[in-house]
């Protein structure tokens, strides 16, 4: 959509490609990251009976701006023992891994990077880069804690990709296509058409699907939590054990990029869940734009609904972080291999049978 728009605007493929690549970053991810870090500290504060940042700007609103400007001024330490090349590439790779996923996520009907028909496949492939980035960071900082953290995170992300993929498969089976755009299109207007409630057609299959959709939602939510390294699975950067895991040796802007990557990844994953189960950018109760028949307002509303769903899931991830303790590495593996994968396989089987009816 945007690509075609810019293509016939400027005529040069290179410029529009570049612009599409940078647009989501500037317009969405940076402000989202600033907002999400502040949201996390405020949510943490209020859960823990305290106020969170208050003194910086009105009620702490400028807190993350101050953090970013401070991090720019920090000295960028590269220790003599660090493997310079890998040390510098690692944060960029981790950020690219989570940022590239935004190219295919449909923010609203017209606001979409590129309408790949292999969108889901592309997202899963690209988030694999995050693991490479973390491993590089762990190895290059030449510090025992980072090495342990990186090893753990590699094992964790790889073993949690499988349940995610299986649940995504069950959704792909129902919709019949892999492009996120068709996912959103199918789950049209009202909330009972969402996949969580069995999809658009109104027949027996819909009611049979509902329980298995909920099971699929729970499984994918847990496994994406692990993929994003959030508690109760934040073992790679477990504060209390591994000092701060793979980004122990990073300071200044490189650490800021890791921080940014984590929040970008959090939103990418929540957006994916919202698109698959909760009707992407569709509003649950129909559009104001239709009532007042102002055509251009609908995409804006869709953008608003999409962002609010994403932020709701990000909020739940934060909420979990400040209530649950942390799992140990081998318990983490048993949760994935012994519980999540069998459940998602059975779920896949049943959804397959139901979709045959």
């Amino acid at each position: 959509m945007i690509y075609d728009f810019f293509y016939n605007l400027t005529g040069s493929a290179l410029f529009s490609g570049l612009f599409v690549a940078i647009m989501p970053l500037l317009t969405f991810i940076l402000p989202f990251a600033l907002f999400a870090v502040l949201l996390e500290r405020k949510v943490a504060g209020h859960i823990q009976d305290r106020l969170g940042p208050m003194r910086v700007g009105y009620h702490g609103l400028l807190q993350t701006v101050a953090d970013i400007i401070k991090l720019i001024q920090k000295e960028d330490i590269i220790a003599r023992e660090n493997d310079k090349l890998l040390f510098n590439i690692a944060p960029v790779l981790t950020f690219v891994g989570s940022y590239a996923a935004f190219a295919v996520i449909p923010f609203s009907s017209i606001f979409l990077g590129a309408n790949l028909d292999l969108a889901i496949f592309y997202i899963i492939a690209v988030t694999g880069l995050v693991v490479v980035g973390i491993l590089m960071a762990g190895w290059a900082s030449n510090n025992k804690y980072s090495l342990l953290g990186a090893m753990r995170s590699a094992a964790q992300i790889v073993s949690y990709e499988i349940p995610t993929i299986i649940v995504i498969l069950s959704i792909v089976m129902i919709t019949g296509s892999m492009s996120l755009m068709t996912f959103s299109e199918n789950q049209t207007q009202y909330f009972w058409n969402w996949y969580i409630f069995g999809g658009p057609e109104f027949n027996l299959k819909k009611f049979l699907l509902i329980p298995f959709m909920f099971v699929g939602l729970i499984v994918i939510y847990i496994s994406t939590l692990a993929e994003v390294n959030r508690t109760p699975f934040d073992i790679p950067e477990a504060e209390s054990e591994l000092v701060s895991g793979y980004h122990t040796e990073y300071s200044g802007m490189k650490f800021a990029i890791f921080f940014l990557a984590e929040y970008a990844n959090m939103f990418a994953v929540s957006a994916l869940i919202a698109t698959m189960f909760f009707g992407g950018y569709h509003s649950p109760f129909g559009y104001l734009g239709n009532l007042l028949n102002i055509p251009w307002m609908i995409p804006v509303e869709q953008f608003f609904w999409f962002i609010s769903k994403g932020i709701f899931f990000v909020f739940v991830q934060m909420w979990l972080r400040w209530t649950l303790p942390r799992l140990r590495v081998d318990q983490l593996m048993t949760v994935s291999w012994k519980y999540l994968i069998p459940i998602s396989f059975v779920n896949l089987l049943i959804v397959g049978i139901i979709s045959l009816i």
Partner: protein
Amino acid sequence: MGLLDKEFSEGNIIITTTENLFNWARLSSLWQVSFGLACCAIEMMATSASHYDFDRFGVIPRPSPRQSDVIIVSGTVTLKMALRVKRLYEQMPDPKYVISMGSCSNCGGPYWEHGYHVLKGVDRVIPVDVYVPGCPPRPEALLEGLLKLQEKIRNESLSKS
């Protein structure tokens, strides 16, 4: 003094506003190394707990020295620990500050006379920006120490060395 410094030494509008912005950013997000030694560390934890909340001033405890700007030396620095404190200070990236909390790290505290293993004041090992008296200082005193440090950062300037 380089050529550039003479040019901007008296600090015109552009320089002062950016300076204030940088100072404001540095002082409003002081990240503290979560590093406690003795009884003052318990008071430091009480300060970052819900009642006296450090987070209101933008201070969050960071586990690794690489990502922190202020080190609050809270407790008695013994000779065996002094070299570790020195190395910890050196590991921190550059605009870094030190708050010496409690009379033990200010001057040896109650152990100044017969403490054969106590370092008589952490400023013998690392430069200190703010001294917070008390044994242990009340959380309000530590907060006041932090405000003093913020005041000091506010008046720092890039051009005039």
